[in-house]
């Protein structure tokens, strides 16, 4: 009798957990869909952002025309290597 009662309780608990698991699974699905949807919209917004606000900034290049040759003299690859090296040094 007691064993039976225990089994019933245990079964009831398991069913509870089963329902919770189902809820957790649906939360997992809605959650991931939600995160992807939100960030996809953000991707769209950011790619439009470059159309609106990208391109040349009007005031800056005129202010320091003398500096431009110096900055174009360094290749992008060099800048990348130097900045990565600095970052790596700082991370130590």
């Amino acid at each position, binding site marked *: 009798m007691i064993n039976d009662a225990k089994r019933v309780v245990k079964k009831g608990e*398991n069913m509870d*957990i089963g329902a*919770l*698991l189902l*809820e*957790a*699974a649906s*939360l*997992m699905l*809605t*959650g*991931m869909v*939600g*995160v*992807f*949807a*939100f*960030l*996809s*919209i*953000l*991707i769209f*917004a*950011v*790619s439009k*952002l*470059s159309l*609106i*606000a*990208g*391109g040349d*900034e009007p005031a800056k290049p005129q202010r320091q025309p003398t500096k431009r040759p110096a900055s174009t003299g360094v290749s*992008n*690859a060099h800048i*990348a*290597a130097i*900045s*990565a*090296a600095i*970052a*790596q040094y700082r*991370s130590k």
Partner: protein
Amino acid sequence: MDGLLNLWQATGLANFTVPALVMMAVGCGLLYLAIAKGFEPLLLVPIGFGAILTNIPVAGLAEPGGLLYYVYYIGIDSGVFPLLIFMGVGAMTDFSALIANPRMLLLGAAAQFGIFATLFGAIALNFVPGFEFTLQDASAIAIIGGADGPTAIFLASKLAPELLGAIAVAAYSYMALVPIIQPPIMRALTSEEDRKIEMPQLRHVTKREKIIFPLAVLGLAIMFLPSASPLVGMFCLGNLMRECGVVDRLSNTAQNELINIVTIFLGLAVGSKLSATEFLTVETLGILVLGALAFSIGTASGVFMAKIMNKFSKHPINPLVGAAGVSAVPMAARVVNKVGLENNPHNFLLMHAMGPNVAGVLGSAVAAGILLALVG
């Protein structure tokens, strides 16, 4: 004689209990990890010390009337401290790598699978006798996978305050362990050729784009996910102060003095939740295991997403950068850079990994907002 007896009754020695001593040892352990091993010292020092203070017998620092009780009540129960920290993090974050390559947001989204898979795992743990996690508890535990301290504390304070101590300790410990947890997973899921992939130089991002970006993010949060707007809003405020260039004083305060002050009290308040009755439970063990699981799954799903994107993208994408999708800024990006250099000494992935890394911060804030909206 009575006086002497009363004095003895008022000493710590007469009132020590074993669980309190164990918790003091845990506090000392956290201090050791912070001071000797350099694990997240800014947080683990106040948390560890707070744990010691909390468990002092008789003094009752974490009970109503005690200092730590009020620090917790004012700062964490209200949700204020994590949000102030988030403002400071926003003021420290440079989004240009993400604006230059917005598709990296997908990696930040994929890595949040660690959160939702762990939610499932936490509920499944209920089959083990001794565990009784509700959906709220499970959500608060799962957010450890977001690898974002303030977000985890914010969500835990709203959904499962009694588990907050264990969740915060797990989140910060695993964030410190990112360089140990992530590389084996990254190596196991990628081939050597994958890891050697070099990515094209990122384009220049204008100041105007950087100013509009936080406003755009906030606009989307307002429209689609208002429950995430406390986190996203404070983050965007900090970022706007940084990028707009006219309030450098405020930006500097947010990312230095203010965040430091709040960090001290946040740590103490988390420490106040490390009392023996709340921490020395089988649930804490479960939380530690689930936290590690959440980090690993997040890392793996980020790498998988990056592999898929590499297949369909015009420009090559190194799958390693996917691992940076679990926020933990900037530690995860540095780990990516390090693993990348092991296979190709000319391959500097740091800037490329910063994109998914900051996307991970946004992703975990969004995931927190979704959890708040659905189970809060």
